[in-house]
């Protein structure tokens, strides 16, 4: 096992806890959620607020759709050699009324996914550098 520290691949987009959450913001006035975070202007056309609070988004949701990547994406993606295809899910968060994309955890393929099924957010390695392990959020089928 590697002794390298685990660090987020993108700073500040999710907690590093055992039950991780994506970190977004919410408009103080109209309640619209933003992920990635929005702190400068509310994009709801009926709201001109500039006040936001940081919030943890729901860590479970339902599959809106799914696919996979059979070919290695170009940089800045850092691929393992040899490249291993991975599934991707778009998951609908009920409270936030938004859909968030992410890879699906290693070992779960498209044949195990279905529109409407329940998923939860987990952290997994995106890639390693000489100094650390970059982790990111991924979707995992929710155990019944």
């Amino acid at each position: 096992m590697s002794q390298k520290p685990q660090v987020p691949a993108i700073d500040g987009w999710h907690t590093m806890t055992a039950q991780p959450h994506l970190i977004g913001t919410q408009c103080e006035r109209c309640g619209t959620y933003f992920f990635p975070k929005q702190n400068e202007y509310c994009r709801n056309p009926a709201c001109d607020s500039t006040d936001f609070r940081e919030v943890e988004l729901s860590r479970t949701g339902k599959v809106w759709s799914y696919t996979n990547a059979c070919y290695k994406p170009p940089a800045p993606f850092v691929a393992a050699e040899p490249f291993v295809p991975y599934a991707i899910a778009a998951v609908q968060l009920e409270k936030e009324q938004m859909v968030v994309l992410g890879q699906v955890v290693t070992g779960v393929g498209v044949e195990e996914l279905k529109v409407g099924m329940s998923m939860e957010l987990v952290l997994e390695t995106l890639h390693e550098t000489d100094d650390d392990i970059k982790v990111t959020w991924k979707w995992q089928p929710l155990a019944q």
Partner: protein
Amino acid sequence: MSNEIAILGVGMHPWGKWGHNFVQYGVAAAREALADAGVPWQDITYVSGGATIRCGYPGYVAGATFAQALGWQGAEVNTSYAACASGSQALAAARNKILAGECEVALVVGADTTPKGFLAPAGGYRPDDPDWVRFYLGITNPTYFALYARRRMDLDGDTLADFAAVKVKNSRVGSKNPLARYRKIYTPEDVAASAMVADPLRLMDICATSDGGAAIIVSSLEYARKIGKANAPRVAAISLVTPTFASSVVEMPDIATDSAAAAGVEAHAYRASIPLKAYEQAGIGPEDISLAEVYDLSTALELDWIEDLQLAPRGEAAALLRAGDTALGGRIPVNVSGGLACFGEAVPAQALSQVCELTWQLRGQAGDRQVEGAKVGITANQGLFGHGSSVIVKK
């Protein structure tokens, strides 16, 4: 008061991977359109160019670049960037100038030379750029098309055979189009044997990127009458609407949709909203359409567009396809040019190429691809960053 303008001439440089400068394709298309219109270049008083933006690539000065290449003659110029809708936005700029009475006859032109391989963002660590973020996380363009395709399968019962049938249909008619890049007729077996790219989409379900150029000469109806072309096809509507907050569909290159959690906010599907304004502006409905040219970035996306244009109820486009209704000779032929499946996408030229095809069809000049009795045609496309367009052309 009519808001219509006349289409006097159209021209295209064949699509391919020619490796020349994009200006060459635009000039060739423009000269062909001028000859088709019978209008001398010196009479054009407005040049409206469709542009693309790609890492210093000079397409963003399209209007002036083409005007200089054709020979400076004092015309005013415009350059429009609207991603895949750049050509339609350039056409709308020319229409505005004409309807304002400031120009009688204008050239609208778009052309592109595409780089090889994946389109990738600039390097570094740039989490503020959604395009950088999604590539870093392993989400490429086919991901989005595949998500839409999978929803059709899980919710509407579409099958891989349906998607393959779109490719087969378009390759059949595209094989008759000398301007198309891919002219081979494919079978369902060919599609099934091609490599899976983003499940359920295979290589042959996804369009390529190409070099190409398209140009249109447009004028006031009065000018058209004056030069004996009173019966030229007309642009009856151009919709360039942006999305309405919030989004119900995750759009390239975003990692998430806009939240519809606020009171009074509903989630809207952008693609379906684009043709609404076009129908309203032209004062017609989907039942009046003879044929459609839609942006088939993937085979499954052609089926989405058919429903977005309201040519079929939601979820029923595949039934239309299976019945042969969307093929040449069917009730409502879709992509009789061969579509992006046969052309590959040349971004700033593509929306104009759709209008070129409708023009040939409405004139009855489409040869082997002719839709019998074509009277009204509609185009539809959607690109990055909230850009999309729909143009209605009628006799």
